[in-house]
């Protein structure tokens, strides 16, 4: 068995950012394990621009953004194993991976950071009624084919779901020569970022059908027709609102789920994000096992992914130095009215250095609201927001001295103006 102080599973932006931060904090014995033949993760296929505005104060494409990190990893001489698929993690931190050259390899780690990203919900997961023809792909699969291999998966395309990847693929397919007939979204508002609605749909006159979903797909062997219809508040189809689209391709952009498979056999619990429950150090319920990036909760901005990964690296180093005591005053952090989830779910106040951050998403679009953060009955922070949407993660930094140790519950909720 090989030993390493810190093992990072997944070499996407989160994994690389965590490794670099850990190196900067003095740990040299780091191994990144990545199943693909290259570092960078999902950003390899995200060739559009819009990355890095916070991190580098300029707008980069996905490949440019990730190259800055992979170059740094190489420069620092941090080791990584490519084409190496991690098969399991044990609760005493033995990581097992396999690759063609070495076969099965066991690595004993002192600390682990899981940064395995997320995966897309597919046709099976959402149970589309009708035939089962070919021509139905997830938006991410279509993106991989178009941007990495140069194939268009269809010529007349309909898109279900207004998640960012779907919107970005609406533009991509249009630019590369396909006709995109429309995008249907079940909810009365878009699941994607505003800017993507403007520059991916409006720029190309692609209609967005809100409160609509696919009622039926038709096609014997290959997709021939998609029928959408409007839904009411109870998500029931409204008769007579059907619209038919003759198309050879249906792209699904119906949500991303944290890729937590490796956590399934471990004695730790998951949160509402479907990622692991973590404390303020991004540490799971197993001391020394950390998690960050899309595997913890799905992010819209890679800048926040790398920020979170650095928090996890700081946490892992504190753990390795014996500084995470898990004693003293403990808070449970819960989402209140109007909030879908909050990360982290637990805070060990004595382990907090100077400040900590809460990340959350609201349940629906709202205007002119206050975000309240309470400790028991005391409001410790009130933030006015002129506009807030579920598609954008919110982040609030709080200094440690705001916490008074008078209760064991922190709540984040929305106060709507009457």
């Amino acid at each position, binding site marked *: 068995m090989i030993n390493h102080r810190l093992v990072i599973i997944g070499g996407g932006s989160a994994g690389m950012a965590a490794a670099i931060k850990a190196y900067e904090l003095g740990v040299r014995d780091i191994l990144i394990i990545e199943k693909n033949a290259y570092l960078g993760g999902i950003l390899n296929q995200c060739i559009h621009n819009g990355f890095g505005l916070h991190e580098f104060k300029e707008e980069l494409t996905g490949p440019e953004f990730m190259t800055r990190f992979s170059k740094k990893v190489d420069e620092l001489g941090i080791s990584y194993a490519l084409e190496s698929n991690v098969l399991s993690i044990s609760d005493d931190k033995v990581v097992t991976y396999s690759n063609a050259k070495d076969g099965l390899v066991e690595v004993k780690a002192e600390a682990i950071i899981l940064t395995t990203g997320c995966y897309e919900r597919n046709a099976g997961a959402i149970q589309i009624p009708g035939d089962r023809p070919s021509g139905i792909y997830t938006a991410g699969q279509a993106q991989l084919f178009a941007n990495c291999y140069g194939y268009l998966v269809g010529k007349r395309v309909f898109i279900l779901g207004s998640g960012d990847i779907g919107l970005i693929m609406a533009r991509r397919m249009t630019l*590369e020569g396909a006709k995109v007939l429309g995008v249907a979204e079940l909810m009365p508002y878009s699941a994607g970022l505003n800017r993507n609605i403007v520059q991916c749909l409006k*720029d190309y006159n692609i209609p967005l059908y809100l409160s609509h979903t696919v009622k039926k797909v038709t096609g014997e062997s290959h997709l021939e027709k998609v029928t959408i219809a409007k839904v009411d508040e109870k998500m029931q189809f409204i008769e007579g609102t059907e619209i038919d689209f003759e198309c050879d391709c249906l792209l699904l952009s119906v949500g991303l789920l944290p890729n937590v498979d490796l956590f399934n056999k471990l004695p730790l619990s998951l949160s509402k994000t479907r990622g692991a429950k973590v404390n303020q150090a991004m540490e799971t319920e197993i001391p020394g096992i950390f998690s960050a990036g899309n595997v913890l909760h799905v992010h819209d901005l890679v800048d926040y992914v790398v920020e979170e990964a650095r928090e996890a690296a700081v946490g892992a180093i504190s753990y390795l130095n014996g500084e995470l005591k898990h004693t003293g005053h403990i808070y449970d952090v819960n989402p209140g009215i109007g909030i879908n989830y909050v990360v982290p779910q637990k805070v060990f106040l004595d382990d907090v250095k100077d400040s900590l951050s809460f990340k959350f998403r609201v349940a629906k679009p709202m205007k002119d609201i206050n975000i309240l953060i309470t400790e028991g009955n005391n409001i410790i922070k009130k933030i006015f927001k002129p506009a807030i949407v579920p598609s954008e993660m919110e982040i609030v930094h709080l200094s440690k001295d705001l916490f008074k140790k008078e209760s064991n519950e922190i709540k984040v909720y929305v106060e709507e103006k009457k």
Partner: protein
Amino acid sequence: MKELICITCPRGCHLSVDDNLNVTGNFCPRGAMYAKAELTHPVRMVTSTVAIASISECRLPVKTKEPVPKELIFPVMDEIRKTVVKVPVKIGDVVIKNVCGSGVDVISTKEIKE
């Protein structure tokens, strides 16, 4: 008064622009610049991929170095589609010079060794 959504960054600020091109609702100065440009001469970044001579089933991602006039998006795409590059290529290497006479180069956004 015109309402716009700033697309310069993912924040997506809601901007209002009056007849004298005074902008409100922008979180940062880039929003005001965007609104003025959008109402006078809209521009967009174009990203895509080009073929690589020696490697099939592998594309080189590219972008316009600066945003180009919106009406040039499809002409730029036509040029990009005709282009085949040789590797090795580095980030920032010019793939098409002065594309469609726009004064803007199309450049590589990835390093490909061979």
